[in-house]
């Protein structure tokens, strides 16, 4: 998880929501390919010991924030902004990553 966050932080910022989701997915997959022995089988629902990027069916409501998509996993929320910003936080609210989009704004600076 630390390596994933470190690489994602270092990566060039994305300029749109879809590229931000692709960026997170590619960084996570690269880290798992490198560090995990588990082959990538995203269609499996049950755990195989590998971390996977957010899937569309795990998108949850994000009230009053039309510029954001919010995804849930067991212990984390991941937010993606229309400007390419990414925020990953624990469900208790600890921020693990707050990466601005290419325009310099973070997810929490959108819709305000």
């Amino acid at each position, binding site marked *: 998880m630390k390596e994933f966050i470190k690489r994602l932080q270092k990566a060039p910022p994305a300029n749109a929501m879809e590229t931000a989701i692709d960026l997170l997915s590619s960084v*996570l997959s690269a880290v798992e390919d490198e560090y995990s022995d588990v082959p990538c089988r995203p269609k499996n*629902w049950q*755990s195989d010991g590998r971390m996977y990027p957010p899937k569309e069916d795990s998108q949850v409501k994000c009230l009053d924030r039309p510029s954001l998509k919010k995804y849930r996993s*067991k212990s984390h929320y991941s937010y993606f902004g229309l400007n390419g910003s990414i925020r990953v936080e624990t469900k208790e609210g600890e921020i693990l990553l707050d990466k601005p989009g290419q325009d310099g704004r973070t997810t929490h600076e959108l819709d305000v």
Partner: protein
Amino acid sequence: MEAMIDRLIKLVVERLPGSHVKVDDPANAGGNYWVDVRLGKKCQTLEFRPGKGFGLFHEDAGYGEGPAEVYRTPERATQRLEQLLGASGIKASRLSMKDLRELYGQSQVTLAKKVGVKQPAISRFENRGEVKLSTLAATVKALGGKLEVRVHFPDADIPISLVASKK
């Protein structure tokens, strides 16, 4: 809200007094619900997939990792939550045979009768973990389930038979 989620919440509130339930609703129709059940300092998370059931995560699940256990009914999911959050307070990790027996509401005596062994055999099985696969299969069958043995390789997942196939 999905009827299965309503039912789960009702059961949790009844059976785990003092618990707090928080639900993250899906953004899109047909998406997954996320249910956090907190009791004191303990918390368990369930992911509900319509048509599939309630996924329960083990303690060490990482970012985006799937659930380790799946329960198809709110009743069984709540029974598992009772094991994990209730007085016994066991950690969410692989179920022991004792956990499994209790999850399906059987005493050692009743299970022994169904399997056709004596109660001390079930006790030894649960405490020592040494058991013939045929006894394990009979025990799981007596609980209403089916034992499956599956091997995982880097390039394959294969269910295996425990007896050699006839040529």
